[in-house]
């Protein structure tokens, strides 16, 4: 201990300027990040997620600190050689000291951030995520570069070492791809970028902001193995500190480890759906043939679902159906869930054909007018907006992840966005869910019977497992991302306002909606947040709202979107055959929102009204444009309630000539007079 104490004192004394300059710079930069993102924007997630330059600069600093710590011993080596075991002792203690300095630095950041989180909200749970991020993306990379610097320092006296270290740092740092991309922008060597991606020790993509539902993507195994290998080389270096030939091998083995690790990808449990999203866009942009209507004419009595979510998300489902009219039945299931097997209750394999979102099952016997049980097995990963992976699950009850006899595609393309349809059953059915998975579920819309069994009646089945926390407020269970702990006040205010707007909606349409017991607040799950106000779904037992307090509050109060969320919140049967129908609803919603808005006069939510009209307009035919233009003249006023009620009814009827009906309505309510 005395040796360590003296060595530590001398190391700190010898490197006081380097340590002061380096650590103070890092603290200042970290402080700047925390101030601008956490303190000013209250964006706890991005305060860390966007810290790539802090990671990068720290990696460089600790690499050179490691190098200097090793180099400073070279003068005393001749003397140490005469003291048995002293070289090993000194070099080992220096490694301990290096790792200790790094640990103290990173843990001081953990303490600072944690204290600040508690200052913002004492009941937060984000400190654990934040600590894990700092350990994974700062501590471990700093250990790795520090050890590399140390190994090179012990094994090399050459000035070439500096260039070698800079090269390694550039390859390992979070900006390596951007750095090399710029360097090689005019070459065809882009294939090598995946190798750089595999080498990157920091945040995987420095430009991708934090996604509160997924939390941080942390990779432990590879980094820990890296550290263990480097520690091995360090120990080898210590024992071969006198032998020059072995020293060269030690230095080369650092490079060899680097090359080996560039070939090993990081575990792929993170979300990489972009390619899939483009395929979906191509698929849903076309209109696909829907099976004969009669095949969907049956009734689903109850569904037993067994979900196993480990390596794959797999579903084993028993669906009891009756009132079958033909020898075949069809159901809708999101095409990304690949059906492997369909059996009847006797275990007999049934022939089936899965084409896109529709599956037709051949029934071998005449089940007409009888109740039968279908056993359907399928696996899949969900979509970008509705993931079903071992880590994160967001499968709301109105998403087509459970077979349904609704004759509607699960998605449609609108204004270059793939938008999910709402596929809830019109009437509640009995569900029994058995769930086994790597992580536990945060929310299920059924009653929990045991640790893995849930039961109840619902119009669909909701499974949510994300980086969420839960708290009780009045009679409500509120679920929301852990990183939103600093927005608790805004979220509460938002729900109060939501309740007021529900009341406005009820008064207008004579409905009886109210805030359900379970409220799930999520960030935008789609590729962007353009349609965030439409991705709200509610039933008697749950309300799932997508919103982004961090982004939205930068410009206007969080609750300005509420009037435009209402129509979609409690209408889970609202599904769209195509974008034109959706456009018609958006126009309606833009006017409805204005009527529901208690602060319509201050125009703060006007932008949402305009946006809906802007994106809907291209889907309105030239023939119908005059009617649409006539409506726009009412943009600055509220429409009569009677008009809105009738407009909604005509949108909901089975007739397709919405605009003609609307024109008649305009005339009958004498609003056409404005023209």
């Amino acid at each position, binding site marked *: 201990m*005395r*040796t360590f104490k*003296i*060595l530590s*004192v*001398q190391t700190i*004394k*010898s490197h006081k300027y380097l340590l002061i300059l380096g650590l103070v710079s890092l603290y200042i930069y970290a402080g700047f990040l925390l101030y601008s993102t956490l303190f000013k924007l209250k964006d706890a997630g991005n305060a860390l997620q966007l810290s790539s330059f802090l990671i990068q600069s720290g990696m460089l600093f600790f690499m050179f600190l490691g190098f200097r710590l090793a180099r*400073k011993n070279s*003068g*005393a080596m*001749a*003397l*140490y*050689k*005469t*003291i048995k075991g*002293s070289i090993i*002792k*000194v070099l080992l203690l220096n490694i301990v000291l290096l790792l200790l300095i790094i640990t103290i630095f990173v843990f001081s950041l953990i303490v600072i951030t944690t204290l600040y989180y508690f200052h913002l909200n004492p009941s937060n749970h984000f400190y654990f995520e934040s600590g894990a991020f700092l350990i994974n993306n700062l501590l471990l990379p700093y250990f790795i570069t520090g050890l590399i610097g140390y190994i090179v320092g012990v094994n090399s006296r050459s000035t070439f070492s500096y260039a070698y270290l800079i090269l390694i740092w550039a390859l390992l740092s979070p900006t390596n791809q951007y750095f090399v991309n710029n360097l090689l922008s005019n070459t065809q060597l882009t294939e090598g970028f995946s190798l750089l991606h595999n080498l990157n020790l920091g945040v995987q993509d420095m430009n991708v902001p934090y996604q509160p539902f997924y939390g941080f993507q942390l990779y432990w195994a590879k980094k820990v193995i890296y550290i263990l290998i480097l520690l091995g080389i360090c120990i080898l270096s210590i024992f071969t500190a006198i032998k020059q030939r072995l020293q060269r091998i030690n230095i080369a083995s650092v490079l060899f480890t680097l090359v080996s690790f560039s070939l090993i990808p990081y575990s792929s449990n993170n979300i990489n759906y972009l390619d899939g999203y483009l395929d979906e866009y191509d698929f849903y942009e076309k209109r696909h043939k829907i099976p004969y209507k009669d095949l969907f004419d049956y009734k689903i009595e109850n569904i037993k679902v067994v979900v196993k979510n480990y390596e794959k998300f797999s579903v084993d489902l028993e669906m009891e159906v009756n009132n079958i009219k033909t020898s075949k039945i069809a159901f809708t299931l999101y095409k990304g869930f690949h059906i492997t097997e369909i059996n009847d209750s006797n275990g007999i394999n049934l022939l089936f054909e899965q084409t896109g979102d529709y599956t037709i099952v051949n029934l071998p016997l005449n089940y007409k007018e009888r109740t039968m049980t279908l056993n359907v097995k399928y696996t899949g990963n969900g979509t970008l907006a509705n993931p079903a992976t071992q880590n994160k699950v967001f499968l709301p009850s109105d998403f087509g992840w459970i077979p349904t006899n609704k004759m509607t595609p699960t998605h449609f393309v609108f204004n270059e966005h793939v938008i999910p349809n709402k596929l809830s059953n019109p009437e509640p059915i009995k569900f029994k869910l058995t769930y086994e998975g790597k992580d536990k579920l945060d929310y299920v819309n059924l009653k929990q019977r045991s640790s893995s069994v849930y039961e109840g009646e619902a119009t669909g089945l909701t499974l949510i497992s994300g980086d969420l926390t839960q708290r009780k407020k009045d009679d409500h269970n509120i679920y929301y991302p852990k990183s939103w702990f600093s927005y608790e006040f805004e979220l509460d205010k938002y729900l109060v306002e939501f309740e007021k707007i529900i009341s406005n909606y009820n008064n207008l349409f004579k409905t009886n909606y109210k805030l359900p017991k379970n409220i799930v607040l999520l960030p935008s799950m789609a590729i962007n947040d353009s349609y965030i106000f439409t991705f709200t779904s509610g039933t008697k037992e749950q309300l799932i709202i997508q919103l982004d307090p961090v982004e939205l509050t930068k410009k206007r109060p969080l609750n300005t979107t509420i009037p435009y969320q209402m129509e979609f919140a409690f209408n889970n049967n609202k599904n769209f055959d195509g974008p034109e129908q959706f456009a018609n609803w958006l126009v309606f919603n833009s006017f409805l929102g204005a009527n529901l808005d208690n602060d319509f006069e201050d125009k703060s939510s006007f932008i949402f009204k305009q946006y809906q009209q802007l994106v809907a307009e291209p889907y309105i035919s030239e023939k119908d444009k005059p009617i649409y233009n006539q409506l726009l003249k009412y943009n600055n006023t509220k429409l009569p309630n009677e008009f809105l009620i009738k407009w909604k009814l005509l949108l909901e009827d089975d007739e397709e000539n919405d605009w003609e009906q609307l024109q008649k309505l305009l005339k009958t309510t004498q609003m056409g007079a404005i023209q």
Partner: protein
Amino acid sequence: MITIKNLSKTIRGNKIIDNLNLKLKGITGIIGPNGAGKSTLMKIIASVEKGDKGSEIIFNNTSNEPIRIGYLPQNFSIYPNLTVYEVLKLLATLKGNFDSAHIEYLIELFNLANYKNKKMKELSGGTHRRVGIAQALLNKPNYLIIDEPTAGLDIIECIKLRNILLTISEKVEDIIISSHLPEDIEYICNHIVVIEKGQKRFEGSLSEMIQRSENLSYEATIELNDLQKLNVIGEIVKIDKISDKLVKVKFITRKPIADHQLYKPVQPGFLGSYVSLLKGEVVP
């Protein structure tokens, strides 16, 4: 006594030490020109390096105490930002022999009290060297190996250091000093080893060494212009100027000069004997 048997050392194909056989005792001075292999020999004795296969170093320890070696390398370099006391404390701890009273004693012995809290980089060459020897004594060694104790020191510091070495000689069994300065050896040592190109030229006492070259040392008064001629018959070891044109020269020859009135035989002294050894035949 330290017995060295068949010691050779080859580095990258070059024989740095070539089959040395020595018996080092008392205060042994190892002297030789630059590149003779002195430092390598010292390192091998101090166990910093190993000799080639077949080489043997035997410490004939007369007491029952375990062998403890104190070593001062030629380039004693240690963390410049540590104070003298911190250096001694650190090295004592590393040697597993931390004894603050002993450290204080060494500080007194080497007259380092005023420098105790000074950083190593602030010390003069002589003080730095004194700290070097003090650290070599931290583990209370029975064998002390000092490589070039007076390297880089001025005359006064050299004298001080030599006195200190004489003082501590009573506290250790054997001291081995290497130097390329004959004065160091002559002043301190009672046993002398001369090596050149890794080979032994001489081993024995100072008187034996002088005796070997008794008939080879001469003195002459010659003109300054004739100095070059003298180089043909011997090696000049001392020149005293008498006048603008005349100098008194002491020189060493390879063979005795017979019947020459110009040259007067004189006692060779240590320096003369040393030069004589280097220019003469190798003594097996």
